[in-house]
């Protein structure tokens, strides 16, 4: 499941189209629907099939890991729009996820809870509204000032849950009733795979359905004018302004879209974890999302997905490796953050374009090498 977004800073070699000779991909492309929606929808459909196949053939534990992966990926996809496409850094996305999670908790905890889809939409909408406010404040800030403001936001929001502990459950958190799979859905899955629906699997389906919709919408935005304008503002505010684009509202829009995604991610997190508690939305979560975005490859939705996967699968793998190597449980547990920090540094130093950028570059060099020699990707650079 991958929705490629055309990008980016990284793509230094540029795209060279040898005139007159169709690329192998063009053959495939000819079979794709020409409308953006059709193309993206087809990818999402393929993704949906893949999700069903994966979830139905993997163990319940993997299912639960995929559920976890889904909310990290939703939030990371939103953050990649903000940071990768629009160039705004946010250390506060964990707090935005908290807004979504608490909204979900309040809705599902109310007497006569609304249908799940409505809960998700409301969670996204509420967080988007918060995003407008934060984004408006943030739109004038750059670099470290923006990082500082969003960092303070990340620290401040969990405090509200404690201040309003009557409604929000204080330090102990708010229990969230996870929805059970409706009969028709369980039947449909049984019809397809002859597998019973388990709780974890249903949650994974919710998460991945949400993720696919988010990816579809973000890919739509990124591929068209909105994404182009976001990137233009990222690259050169003054030039964008001269083209008639107002950087302020553009930044706020990017922040709002990103916040809506974080809200959705928070809603899914709340449902999967069954709890919204301040200690679940510390700065560590925000940093984790940023890590996912950077390690995966800034600005690429595929990268966000890969980064989120790394976030879910790497720490247990490292810990298990540490235990296997004979470390005590405690030392092995500390190994995970150590590796995490070191990986972060190394990625920026050695592969600043992340996993996706690295792969793309390799692919390009293979293609250029196999194709023709000559002018190709590296034109004369002005020093």
């Amino acid at each position, binding site marked *: 499941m991958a929705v490629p977004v055309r990008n980016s800073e990284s793509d230094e070699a540029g795209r060279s189209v040898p005139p007159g000779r169709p690329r192998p991909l063009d053959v495939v492309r000819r079979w794709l*629907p020409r409308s953006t929606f059709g193309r993206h929808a087809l990818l999402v459909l393929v993704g949906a*099939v893949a999700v069903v196949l994966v979830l139905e053939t993997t*163990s319940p534990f993997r299912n639960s890991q995929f559920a976890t992966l889904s909310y990290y990926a939703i939030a990371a996809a939103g953050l990649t729009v903000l940071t990768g496409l629009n160039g705004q850094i946010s250390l506060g996305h964990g707090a935005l996820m908290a807004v979504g999670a608490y909204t979900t908790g309040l809705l599902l905890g109310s007497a006569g809870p609304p249908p799940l889809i409505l809960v998700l939409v409301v969670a996204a909408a509420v967080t988007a509204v918060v995003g407008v406010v934060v984004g408006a404040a943030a739109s004038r800030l750059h670099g470290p000032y923006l990082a500082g403001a969003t960092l303070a936001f990340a620290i401040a929001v969990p405090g509200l849950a404690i201040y309003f502990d009557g409604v929000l459950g204080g330090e102990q958190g708010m229990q969230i009733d996870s929805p059970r799979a409706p009969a028709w859905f369980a039947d449909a899955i049984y*019809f397809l795979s002859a597998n019973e629906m388990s709780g974890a699997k249903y949650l994974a389906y919710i998460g991945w359905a949400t993720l696919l919709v988010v990816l579809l919408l973000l890919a739509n935005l990124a591929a068209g004018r909105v994404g182009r304008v976001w990137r233009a503002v990222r690259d050169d505010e003054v030039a964008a302004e001269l083209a008639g684009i107002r950087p302020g509202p553009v930044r706020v829009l990017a922040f709002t879209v990103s916040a809506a995604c974080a809200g959705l991610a928070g809603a899914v997190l709340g449902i999967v974890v069954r709890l919204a508690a301040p200690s679940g939305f510390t700065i560590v979560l925000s940093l984790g999302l940023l890590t996912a975005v950077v390690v995966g490859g800034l600005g690429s939705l595929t990268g966000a997905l890969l980064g989120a996967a790394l976030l879910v699968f790497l720490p247990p793998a490292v810990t298990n490796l540490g235990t296997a190597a004979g470390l005590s449980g405690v030392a092995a*547990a500390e190994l995970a953050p150590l590796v995490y920090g070191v990986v972060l540094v190394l990625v920026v130093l050695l592969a600043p374009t992340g996993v996706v950028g690295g792969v793309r570059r390799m692919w390009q060099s293979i293609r250029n090498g196999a194709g023709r020699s000559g002018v190709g990707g590296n034109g004369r650079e002005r020093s």
Partner: protein
Amino acid sequence: MDTVGSRRRLRGRAAVLAVVAVVALLASACGAGGRPSGEEGGAQPGLTPQSVKVGAHFPLTGVASPGYSDIPTGTKAYFDYVNAHGGVHGRQIEYVFRDDAYNPTQTSQVVNELVLQDQVFAMLGGLGTPTHSAVLDYLNSEGVPDLFVSSGSLLWDQPERNPQTFGWQPDYEIEAKIIGKYVAENFPQAKVGLFLQDDDLGRDAEIGGRRFLDRQIVAAERYTPGNTDVAPQIAALQAAGADFVIGFNVPSYTALSQLQSLRLNYDPQWAYSNIGSDPALVGSLLARFSEGAVTDAGLLDGVITTEYLPSVEAAGDPWTQLFTRVWQEHGTDAELTNFRIYGMAEAYAFVQALQAAGPDPTREGLVAAVEQSGAQMEGPWLAPYRYSEQSHAGISGVKISRIVGAGTEDLTPVQVTDNGDAPITPHPGPASTPPANGIPVPPTG
């Protein structure tokens, strides 16, 4: 115009093709997924004739890890000791503990891993109120025995709703009750101030404390965990004229409250609940660096606290001797701490429960065994459990003691009680002693 139209039709056809492909894929998925369900009925996850797997979640990294990350190492050392002596009913205990960094989101992930991937037979001693809350429903709906949660919250004692979950340590309410009664009887003139952590710890404790002290309490101040500035709370206690302050807080806030009192030259009689007063941990605060700076005794000297387990400093206690031996044989190079003793005591309790569940334990059997024979189980804990079919509450009492140097001296015998308005009574009977080989004696018959 025509060509555009035909091209569009062509694209439409491509979409149809895609749908067909999807349906085909789905159909193939049907076949792939159709494996036989229904495994053999009697199999228990995590249980083989040779082994039984036990899981736990603890904060091994992050802000909450100091101290608490010691607990599972103690548990593991004791299980290793039992394994070296043949295990329980011939089964070796495999203990898997994972890091949740005191983050409920991660707790949920690691417990999924423990239950689904590691296939643990039971959970033991998962630590923290918000963290364990996140997995409470899950463990109960999956039918995983959730023994001896490492937290004094009242949440774990809901046998109707959470039949698999058992508390273990004395809950904050009864601990506060017992302290409250002691203060009311021995310091009837004291103006009492409460220094409370603003969560279930402080809330439950205030309920318990007010049962005997409502008339004497002149101030109840709450701090937010994470905010290290406790000056306003201490100043308010001082301003209210409290000359006896009872703290229900975690250890780092014991240090902060003491430092702040020094700064304000505020010197009430302090009492800290067990959770915040480990003398070995914070008792030596500044003691070694005192020349000319503070008094040459530790800051906590003379502070009143409670105990429900033998302390690492009580070298004469046979339980401490046993645990010291266990730690020497199976622990790490680090020194034995009260947190590790806590972990060993939980492990001891688990071994008893497993023994009581019989040679062919089941998850239901384990839960039933704790409910039926838990109240009679003896171990290093000073007061008996309250386990029954109606109650999943743990240790029923504490003794009041005073910190002297790095150790403690008793002020009262062990007092036992229950939640609500249950009376407080001295615990009769002699203190238990460990069996010679250090392993619980299985119930006979």
